[in-house]
Structures are given as C-alpha cells and as structure tokens.
C-alpha cells in the first residue's frame, strides 16, 4: 500500500506530522507552569494605559520598536535588567517585537519624563535632528474614543469600576500613549 494513492490518509498523516511539534512546543506549554507566570505580581493596566497601548498597536509602533531586553551584557548596559516572564504576563497581545529600527522600549518609562515624550512624539527631529521617526503631532489633537473602555476592562479582566474610567474624559490620544509609555518598565508591584 502506498499512501500517495490515498489523499485522505495522506492528509491525515500530514496533519499528524504537523500536530506533534505544534502541541509539544506551542500548545502544551500554554498549560505548563514555567510559561504561565504569576499574574498577581503585575499591576493591572489603568484605563488610560490600556487606551494608550491600543494606540501603540494601531500606529504599529511595534514595527520599529521591540519591548524585550536580552540577558546580554551590552544589552543590559543599554536598556536595563533583562526582561522577565512576569513583566508581560497580562499582555494581550504581547508587544515584544522583532525589529529595532528605533531603540527597545521595555524600560523607556524609567528613562525620560512625560514632558520629553510629548515633545518627542510631536516632533522627534526637534530632539534628534537625524531621527527617522515619523511625527505624531496629530495625536495631540485627537480626542480619545472612550466608547469601548469599559468593555475592554471586562474582556481583559482588569479590576476597575465605571468611576475609574471617568478619568478618560477630556483626554487626547497623545495623553493615553504617553501614559502607556510611562508605564513601561514599571509593570511589577513593588
């Protein structure tokens, strides 16, 4: 018997071959303790930070910025201590990234004051004349869309009340993005 004469058997065998590595390296680890860190150590995102993170995703910041510090001496010298599992434990999706056209941002919240980010986002070349980062001045004029704030909290399972979400009133997209950037590197409870 030759399986290249039996398409259904052939496909089932292909699925089987595909599923071995898939289960062992990707889906079984979902339930293994070493990959599922203790989320109790993490400070849940505040409503403004959640909105800021969603703007980071919308603008595709992850196409040029990673958020992961490798345990290599030259890397920790530049960006701070190596990233830990716990720091991204509640991140859906993760934003580790794969390319550093710009620097890593995993600890950027500890590097600059918020005012620096406002200026840099508005006009990166005013700080680094040779920077290739696009200017995001228009975020400062865009009113934050609050319609889904409560739903987002529910889906993500963060413990915030309707009152907490009131903070979003009158905020711009820039406020949200900067609030998110200022959180980076401060994920864990003291």
């Amino acid at each position, binding site marked *: 018997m030759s399986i290249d004469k039996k398409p259904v058997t052939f496909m089932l065998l*292909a699925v089987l071959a595909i599923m*071995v590595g*898939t289960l062992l390296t990707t889906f079984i680890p*979902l339930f293994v303790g070493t990959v599922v860190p203790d989320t109790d150590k993490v400070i849940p995102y505040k409503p403004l930070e959640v909105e800021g993170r969603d703007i980071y995703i919308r603008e*595709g910041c992850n196409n040029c910025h990673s958020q992961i510090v490798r345990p290599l*001496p030259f890397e920790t010298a530049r960006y701070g201590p190596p990233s830990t599992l716990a720091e991204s434990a509640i991140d859906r999706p993760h934003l580790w990234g794969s390319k550093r056209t710009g620097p890593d941002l995993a600890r950027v919240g500890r590097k600059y004051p918020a005012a620096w980010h406002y200026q840099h986002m508005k006009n990166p070349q005013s700080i680094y004349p040779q920077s290739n980062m*696009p200017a995001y001045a228009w975020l400062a004029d865009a009113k934050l869309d609050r319609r889904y704030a409560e739903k987002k909290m529910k889906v993500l399972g963060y413990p915030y009340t309707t009152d907490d979400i009131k903070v979003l009133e009158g905020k711009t997209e820039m406020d949200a993005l900067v609030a998110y950037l200022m959180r980076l590197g401060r994920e864990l409870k003291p």
Partner: protein
Amino acid sequence: MANEIGYEYDAVKGFALSSLFWAIVGLLVGILISIQLVYPQFNLTSWLTYGRLRPIHTNALIYGFTVPAAFSLFFYLVQRLGRVPLAYPGLARFTLYIFNIAIVLAALSLFAGMSQSKEYSELEWPLDIGVVILWVLFSINIIATIMKRKEEQMYVSLWYILATVVGVAIVYIGNNIAVPVSLFKSYSAYAGANDANVQWWFGHNAVAFVFTTIPLAVFYYILPKSSGAPLYSHRLSIVGFWSLVFAYLWTGAHHLVYTPLPDWIQTVAIAFSIFLIAPSWASVINGYGTLNGQWEQMRSNYLVKFIVLGITFYGLQTIQGPSQAIRAFSALIHYTDWVPGHVHMGTMGWVTMTVSAGFYYMLPRIYNTEIYSIKLANLHFWLVLVGQLIYSVTMWITGIRQGAMWQAVDTDGGLVYANFIQTLTPNYPFWNMRTLGGVIFFAGFLVFVYNILQTIRNAPAAQRA
C-alpha cells in the same frame, strides 16, 4: 493543445491576474516605506505612516500576491496532475470575487490602523473569519478535484499542495484566536510569553506553508516539465517532504532566542532549525540532480533559468535561516536589518522567481498561445536578480554593522555608542541602496506583468475571456 478533458481555467486566469495586480500594489508600498526609513517627511498623513504601511506591504505580498498565485497555479496543477477538470468551477469563480473583495477590505482596515499587531497576522477578527472561509472554499475545490483524479498516484506537487491546504488552516486559526471588543478590535486569547510563542509558531510556519510548500509544489512540476528531464529522485522527494512537514512546526521559537520564554523551548527550536537544512536541501539536490547533463539549458531555456535560480536562493535561504537560529549569531543580528535582508532573499529570490516560472509556463498554455517575448522574460530575470541582490547584500552588511555597534564596549565595559541614534544614522546610505534595489526589482516585475499581458492579448479571441 486540445482541451478534451474539459479543464476549467477561468479561476486560474482570474487568480493569476489578481496576484499580479496586488503584487504591484504591495511592491509600491514597499518602495514607499523604504524611502520613509531615510526621509521621515514622507510619512504624509496618519494612514500613510510607516507603522501602518509596513503591514500593508507584508500582507499585500503574502495574502495579495503569493496566496492567489497559489490558488491559480494549484487549480491548474490539480487538474493537469489528476487529468480531470476542476470539481466546482462555479465555486472557484465565486472564490475569486470574494478574494478580491476581502483584499480590498483588508487593505482599508490596515490603512485605518485596525490591527492585532501580530506580524503577518495583523488583520482583525472579522477579516480573519473571511480568510478562513476563503481557505475552506479553496480547499474544497482542491481536495474534491484530487479525490476524483484519473491518475492514481499523486505526484510530489500534489503532496505539497495538500500540506499547504492543511498547514495554513492549522497555523492561521491557531494564532488568531481572540476575544472581540468591537467589530474592529479584539484582544489575543493568549498572554505574554505564550502569545509570543504562538505568534512565532504561526510566523515561522506561514513561511513554511506559504513561502515554502507553495513554491515547492510549483518547482517540482515546472522543473521536469520545462527542462524535459525526469525528476532526479522520487525517494529523495518522499524523505524531503515528510521530514519538512514534521520538523517545521518545532522551529518557531528561534525567533524568541534570549527572551524570557523557557530555554528548553528555544533550544528545541534551534535544534530543529538546524535539522531543517536536510529536508530543504533534499529539494535543492533533487533540482540540481534533475539537470545533470542538461546544464546548457541555463543558457537556452529561460524557464530553467528562473527555476534554478529560485531553488538556489531557497538553498541559500535554508542555510542562512538555521545559522541565524544559533544563539551566538542571533545575539549579533536579531532586531537588525540582517533579518529583512534574509527574508527578502527568500521572497524576491525564491518565491517570486518560482511563481514567475510557473506563470510563464502555465499562462501561454491555457491561453493557447506562445510567450510574447523571451527577450523581455530575460530582461525580467536580470532585473529581479540584480534588484534582489542589491537589497539583500546591503541589508546584511548594515545589519552586521549595526549589531556590532550595539555590542561595542570600551575597556571599562561602557557602551561605545551609548546613544541609539549613533547606530541608526549609518544605516541611511544602505537603506538608500535598498530603495534602489527595490526600484530595480519593481522595474523587472513590471516587465514581467507587461510580458504576461501582451501574451494574453496575442491569444486567440476565444481564450481571452
């Protein structure tokens, strides 16, 4: 060539032309984002910023070019290799319309910034459902046609087609499980390191089942057909196929070397990445072996030229990729421009050259005509070859350069280039060279499209529909 069997070519033609159209769009966006990397003033409006355009570039060329090219070539191959007409030609035409609507919506949604942020999986959940429906419609036709084939033994190309059908379905669905917040926004079902692990399991196997098994199916058909030489080794193709399909799924975490993902997952991925050299080179050796004693065809037969250069870049790609998985090498080049240099050798070299050979072979046959101009096909060949080499080589150089600058420490252990901007600006001349390479490649692609369109124009009126 009489069509006594009643082969159905409408969808084959439609998908071929759709793929060429969306390729032009994707390549133009590629050139624009390449320019933006040096001249940020080209980020004209919010929906024309690099962060939104880069996913449009990748999605257009994966889902807008490579996937419909596969639909076209696979609908042709299952008919010819089974010696039966397509099972459901009406369904195939319907799939074509739905496909083009979906791609337009996908592009608009990415322009608007609707993104899941996961690379090559950016499309939001309603479009993910659309992609899955499209894939099911396509698979029904492929499987049903193979089931009723007249040729009992399935040729190697059909194995790779079946692997593509099941592989894409598994990895696409697996990575896109998400909880919707609104019609345009969702959150991944996975969190943190797990989300990263699932994402790169998908990411690397999108490479396996879109950029590998699709061109391999075409390669195994076109090489013997265009050269007239029988496949070098059937046994080698069996070993190559099963070990490839088995091993690819273990390798995704080589994208996550030195992250907090547990070391054993990284190490297993690195080991299987090295192993993958064997099945990859099984196809390379099969290709070279097939041409044993026939190498003068590299001068006389433009189809052989495309397919041999294609498989050669596949061979280089599958040495380079596993090398990059090794920790020491990854530490140097990961996060740098080396990686796009690597990817583009595969896409501009292997994938595009193989698909081009497939179209040059197939389209004149189904339009009952000859290729419009072999001279232009040769011009196309040289332009895409030179464009791709300029692109890849400049990216490798600047990637190594930037990686070395990030690592440089003085005798006190302090960073030599402490400010990131010092390591960024030396990229600019290389990125300008990349733009040049991209423009040359694009010019070659336009020659290709022109050649195909002229070929169709010269076809007998009855075939032109």
